């Protein structure tokens, strides 16, 4: 049985306005490919990548979502039980940066503090057309406790770093949660309570989680 929330599985969701380069970022990261004419993402698509961090191998389950506002109704399906979110904007488009801020608000409200946030300013190869200053974005990211990276899917810049930082932080976050939970458990009559306590870790995998939100 597939358990996406297994020990070394981490779920990442990519969010951001249409055509900022979410799909291109993922494809560059996972397959090291790039196309100028990437088909519009309808709904969302799934990719996974195995990476080594120190001694650990972990599996990143990555959901690349559609950018158009209308598809936000589906948002919770993808971010509900995500360990991390990569919020992408286009450095040549101020509007797309404003959308990132909306996503941060929504995620903090709906998912809380536990989800690791990382903001990526993509298309730095188009530096001449830049509208969003790096310092401004960095300042904002710091203020909401998110990482910030500048990327170019076209040139393959900054992407490894982005995902690596995200992965490291997700691992750290999970370890923290685990130790907090075991602290709560210790002294109790453990084995049974462990299972009963474990709803959030049990089976709310990417897809099954979505079944609960047929709102």
């Amino acid at each position: 049985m597939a358990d996406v929330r297994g020990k070394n599985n981490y779920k990442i969701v990519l969010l951001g306005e249409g055509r900022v380069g979410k799909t291109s970022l993922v494809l560059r990261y996972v397959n090291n490919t790039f196309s100028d004419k990437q088909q519009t993402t309808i709904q969302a698509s799934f990719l996974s990548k195995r990476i080594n961090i120190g001694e650990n191998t972990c599996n990143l389950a990555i959901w690349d979502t559609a950018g158009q506002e209308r598809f936000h109704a589906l948002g919770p399906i993808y971010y509900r039980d995500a360990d991390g979110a990569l919020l992408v904007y286009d450095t040549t488009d101020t509007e797309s940066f404003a959308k990132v801020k909306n996503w941060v608000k929504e995620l903090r409200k709906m998912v809380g503090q536990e989800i690791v946030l990382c903001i990526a300013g993509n298309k730095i190869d188009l530096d001449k057309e830049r509208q969003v200053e790096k310092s401004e974005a960095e300042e904002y990211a710091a203020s909401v406790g998110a990482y910030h990276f500048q990327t170019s899917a076209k040139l393959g810049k900054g992407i490894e770093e982005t995902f690596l930082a995200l992965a490291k932080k997700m691992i750290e976050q999970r370890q923290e949660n685990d130790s907090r939970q075991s602290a709560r458990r210790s002294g109790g009559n453990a084995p049974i309570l462990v299972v009963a306590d474990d709803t959030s870790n049990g089976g709310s995998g990417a897809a099954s989680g979505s079944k609960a939100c047929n709102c």
Partner: protein
Amino acid sequence: MNALEEYKVQRTVHKVLFQGIPPSLRGTAWMVAIGNKKGIDINDFCTYDARARDLHSAIALQDKKAMESMLLDGKHQSAGETGARTTENDDTAQSQSDSILTNFIQVRLDLIRTLPRLKIFSEGGSYTENLRRVLEAFVLYDPGMGYVQGMGSIAGVLLLHTSLEETFVSFINILDNQLFQNLFHMNMGRIHSYLMAFKVFLAKHLPKVYAHISRVKIDLKLFLLEWWMTLFTSFLRFDTVCHLWDILFFEGVGSLVSISIAILKSISAKLLDADFEGLLFILTHMESMELDPERILQSSREIPRISSQDFHELADKMFEELEKRQHSSGFENSAELDDPRVIGRDLMGRFGQRVRVSNGIPCQGPGTVTQVHHGSTAMVVWDTGITQNMRIGKGGEYWLREMPAQLDPFFSL
């Protein structure tokens, strides 16, 4: 026409559909099949197209007033006449005008990302320009729905077969049914009921794949919306798409179901072999699956025709069920277990567990536990496609019992 003749005609239509309409006749045939229930005049396109053009010049001149008056034009007439214009109305109108502009921007962004493998909708190409005009005219025709990603590829394929004006008429009429209205409006409740109805057909015609997908807990929402909202254009070869559309337009929305099942069937070996992540990858990357058009067409031939009426009726029934469950005393929030450890031992962590009802609630037959909510309830998808939130047990008494393997039709597959 007597029954025999009628039968013969039907047989012929059927045969033609399965051989595929000759490409030279396709545009005309589609127009006939799609029809024009909405009564769109062939000249209507020009009206909306002209309005879009005016809007663009106002945008270019940054003439905000002109833009607004154009966008609000016609929408306020009834309110204006009765003098009942309120701030609330103004706000709605304002947000609608904003959304029209946002739609226009999105249309532009998506143009060259439409059907990229065809290499027809390229920067500055004439087809690209026409696609933009059709989509923008549609946004003005139905601002409530507006442009939704996915529409471009439908309009795009139409444009390759019919004129601009005809494409506009056909496009509006294709979207003129409950399923597409709900899909493109993203009415999640309704969409859910369609997916539940789909499940019933899937379980019937492709039981192994259905069982596997349910057991691994893949939510159909994760891929079917894209398949349907693009009418399969996002991953199938152009000629296959056209051939399937022949069937779709003549037989109606019900054939979306049979075609989807046929597509799943054509790759069933791969699907049955895949685990959770593998399935998610396959189903959201169908374009890389080397689909065999012949097999898809062959499979769609083998599945008995599913009428649109049956599909809609079943979905409606599912929707009523859903509503009823939501309004009934609310299992989801009320039940607290006397002893949560019971759950922990028995069902927690056993998602995909096959179960049946042991007492109480009207039984839907065997089903699969898809999720155990914190403490007290579980979500069960019955094999009939109904999803139910159920209390699992109280005071040690179970509502759901594990089902003995030999009674479970899917267990031994």
